């Protein structure tokens, strides 16, 4: 299992691009917006991965840490050694998801919600984000006006220049069946489908710990649980 971590890491082409020789200067952490807010330090992650210490890398896969990165890639712009800590994070996340470590952290368990929202939206609707799938219950940050907007979307859309569910060019248009089929086959061929199954599988295993199965309630529960122990 542990050997597999290192193998998976090294065979990922993004890993080779992301990390060559970190000199622990801290420029990435200094510019990282996530590091300012969360208990998060991209430099340390580079350092741990660079150390090749498999126990520590395994700890990372189990940790909250790797889920704090916002994938903004600001770190890429400044690293004096040409590393990309944000991309290293993407590799660690993928391994954590594939091997099931993600369910061992609060932020990691939320991957289920992302898979079921943005992830499935791509396949089912052809959109990552479309008003139909931004459930007001799941997105309190949208404010009360959002529910009103959803309830009145047919009337409001034309006023905003959108072509809600129409088969023509423009925002919020319907995506044709051909295109959706194509997206599905891309997901199948590239392993995306398999990857989604793994997230469901490990989540339902974990749900047993909470005397539950990985149903909607479980998803909402992991999505909204906040230990309050993530920020600096």
């Amino acid at each position, binding site marked *: 299992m542990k050997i597999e971590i290192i193998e998976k890491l090294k065979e990922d082409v993004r890993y080779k691009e992301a990390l060559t020789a970190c*000199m*622990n*200067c*801290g*420029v*990435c*952490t*200094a*510019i*990282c917006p996530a*590091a*300012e807010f969360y208990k998060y*330090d991209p*430099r*340390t992650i580079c350092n741990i991965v660079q150390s090749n210490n498999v126990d520590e890398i395994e700890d990372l896969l189990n940790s909250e840490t790797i889920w704090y990165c916002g994938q903004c890639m600001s770190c890429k712009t*400044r*690293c*004096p*050694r*040409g590393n990309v800590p944000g991309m290293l994070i993407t590799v660690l996340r993928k391994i954590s998801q594939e091997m099931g470590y993600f369910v061992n952290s609060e932020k990691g368990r939320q991957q289920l919600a992302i898979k079921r929202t943005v992830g499935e939206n791509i396949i089912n609707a052809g959109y990552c984000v479309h008003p139909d799938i931004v459930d007001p219950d799941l997105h309190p940050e949208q404010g009360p006006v959002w529910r009103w907007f959803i309830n009145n979307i047919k009337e409001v859309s034309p006023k905003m220049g959108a072509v809600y569910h129409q088969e023509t060019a423009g925002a919020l248009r319907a995506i044709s069946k051909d295109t959706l089929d194509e997206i599905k086959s891309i997901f199948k061929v590239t392993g995306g489908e398999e990857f989604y199954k793994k997230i469901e599988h490990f989540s339902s295993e974990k749900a047993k710990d909470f005397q539950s199965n990985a149903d909607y309630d479980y998803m909402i529960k992991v999505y909204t649980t906040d230990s309050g122990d993530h920020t*600096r």
Partner: protein
Amino acid sequence: MQHFDTIIIGGGPAGLEAAARLSKFDKHVLIIEKDPALGGKLLLWDKLFPDFASSEELLHQLIENIKNDNVKVSLNTGIKEIENEGGLWNIIDNHNNKYSAKALLLATGFDVFDASRKEEYGYRIYPNVITSVDLEKILSGEVSHAEPKKVVFIQCVGSRDEKVGNHFCSKNCCICAVKQAIEVKEMYPNSEVYCFYMDLRMFGESYEELYRKAQQDYGITFIRGRVSEVSPTYHGQVQIKAEDTLLSRPIRLTADLVVLMVGMEASEGTVEIGKKLQIGGNYDYFKSKNQHLADNLTYLDGIFVAGTSKRQMSIPETMKDAAAAALEINNYLN
């Protein structure tokens, strides 16, 4: 066509020292200097690390040493052509004067890294961001500056940085920052002085001791972390962002004056001649024949190199290298 035993291109510390040594061997030497005065980059510094020696006095001594009949100096002079003809090196300068010599010593030195290339540090954007070279002028009293309450030194500007194409360490900036931090503290005893570094490379004689003194006697704070950016504040100060890598914590610091410790690069003249003679090596510095055994020789017969045109050096190292070059040239001429 005037003939010399050796023509030295560059009248900085390396060129001057080599000229003095060669003249003692009774060789006729011409120094060609592009600037209106001798001294090279020595002219940019007020006091020298690690002993706060006066650079003016050093330069004065170096010039005294070449005041003899064997040494001629041509200022304001650039090189137009260098060619080998029958074992002699012929030079045409920008005034169309022609000279020849059996040996040429290239002592064309370094240029200071242009800090505006690291745009994120705001040099030439925010007036309170200056370079170590600018600071020398404040320390010498040549330029005046409002008394700063908080001064931040930023190391490795233009060095050890893939983003500007310089992977190398400029070697002198660490100790120079320690020297300047102490001088700032002496000039403004009430100021707080911080120095952000990645590693402090205190390898030279009494460098480490000076570093300790800076911490112990002058209360200068050293923080391990490379600065990622400098930005303006509403009150006309600047804020620097870094990580304190020993505490694994991002930090911000507001300062009245930020000093960028600019590194060294091959000078324009070095790059140009390197291309002309095809003896350019890494980062366009001259490449010596063998770093261990023949460090003043090049692959061209009769072309010698010395000082910071070859790689980053301190002044004492440059002088020793120039002395060694003079010895090599003397052997070659005899």
